[in-house]
């Protein structure tokens, strides 16, 4: 498993740069990760990221856009505004979680 250095911390990532160890993440790191993909974090961004972080240990997987909209109550349209183009992947990247499963 490759490692990389983000904001001075060495963390484990997969081939695409998604962090792989839940506990290596911190909000400070999240901010660095967001900056890398051009997202400037506001309270609205954090609401989505914090939901993903708290949902993951319970569910064992990264919340889908539908789950964020129905369970956390953040409309999908707003997620596209906050994390343009690919909100599901961008949110997972910033939250230090695996890419949400797409289809199988």
């Amino acid at each position, binding site marked *: 498993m490759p490692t990389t250095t983000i904001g001075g911390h060495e963390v484990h990532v997969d081939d695409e740069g998604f962090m792989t160890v839940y506990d290596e993440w911190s909000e400070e790191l999240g901010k660095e990760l967001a900056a890398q993909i051009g997202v400037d974090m506001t309270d609205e961004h954090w609401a989505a990221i914090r939901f993903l972080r708290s949902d993951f240990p319970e569910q064992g*997987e990264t919340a*889908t856009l*539908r789950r964020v909209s129905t369970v956390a109550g953040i409309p999908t349209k707003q997620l*596209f505004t906050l994390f343009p183009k690919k909100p599901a992947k961008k949110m997972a990247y910033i939250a230090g979680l695996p890419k949400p499963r*797409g289809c*199988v």
Partner: protein
Amino acid sequence: MKNLVILGGGTAGTMIANKLRAKLGRHDWAITVVDRDDAHHYQPGYLFIPFGTYTRDQVVRSRHAFLPDGVELVLAEVDRVDPDAHQVHLEDGRTLAYDQLVIASGTTPRPDQTPGVMEEEWHRSIFEFYTLEGAEALRDALDGFDRGRLVVHITEMPIKCPVAPLEFTFLADAWLRARGLRDRVEIVYVTPLDGAFTKPVAAEHLGGMLEERKVHVETDFMVESVDPERKVLVSYDEREVPFDLLVTVPLNMGADFVARSGLGDELNFVPVDKHTLLSKKYDDIFAVGDASDIPTSKAGSVAHFATEVFVGNFLEHIAGRPMTGSFDGHANCFVESGDDKALLIDFNYDTEPLPGKYPLPGVGPMDLLKETRANHAGKLAFRWIYWNVLLPGRPMPLPAHMSMVGKRPPAAATTHTQED
């Protein structure tokens, strides 16, 4: 006398009733199957209806004909399950008590969940083929379609039979070519995924097949609404795809009673342990087939392989022993590709579809991830196998667990991801 109640008399529910009736003593366990009607549909057959290959009579039989003596079929809508009282409430007021409950109520297309779909263009220029009525309406529309933009669209994953929209596209291409209409029709494939399929090797292969057929693929398209007046699909990131004929695969959701019972996730699928299919919340509720949230294809083959593992586990569970069977997510799908050919893919939770031979290594007769006539013959023969071998719970000479024997794993250097 104990009660096993199975909600849903489809592929999973029928197989389970048959297999468990043979294993459970008649004086020990009563088995009841609940469904809203007595019509069992061979759903893989819907794909062929729009092209006139199959008719209604070939895909519908009665449910009770496939249930053995000693299984009661109750025809009613389920109102809700009360897991604390161990009871199922039916809409007609009846109540069924259970000692063990199996939820096998599947997944249903929900075109009403996308704004604009079920308005004035519904069944005029907007269709789906995941219901018999929808497939028949599409057949009539295709009959009069001779030019313009045919758009095949997936709303959101997961969907039942994730290869079906690709198959529909391949069959439509071949059907239009056979009629000399292909050069007057533009075919567009619109998907929320970032490729033709999610699993890398198959996505590349199937994507190549779309390209060969001059099908334009619009990826990462999360539909927000359909504008029926302008006949365009609109995405959340404000892209538009115009259509003359739209064939959409609607959002798939589990049964509404699952939500009313507090047993579902955000799409009404029942969260279960992916290896045992036992509810994460209740020790006397299982979900088998499309109704569960396991991360593999929603498909009859999965229901079949999962049932094989489930039956052994269930017997251990009611005897108070730990369940020793572990379902691996095995799926096995024929992919019709037009011109009387098909591919076959075989995969599970951990291993993506790979090229090779199936079911006998090196021999086949089926080829994996390759278009052949033998695979097409297999797909057509499967309808007979479904009615005569699979549903009655007779043994199938296919192992429940996926095998790597006969497959060619990709070299590390040729593994493709779907990231852009």
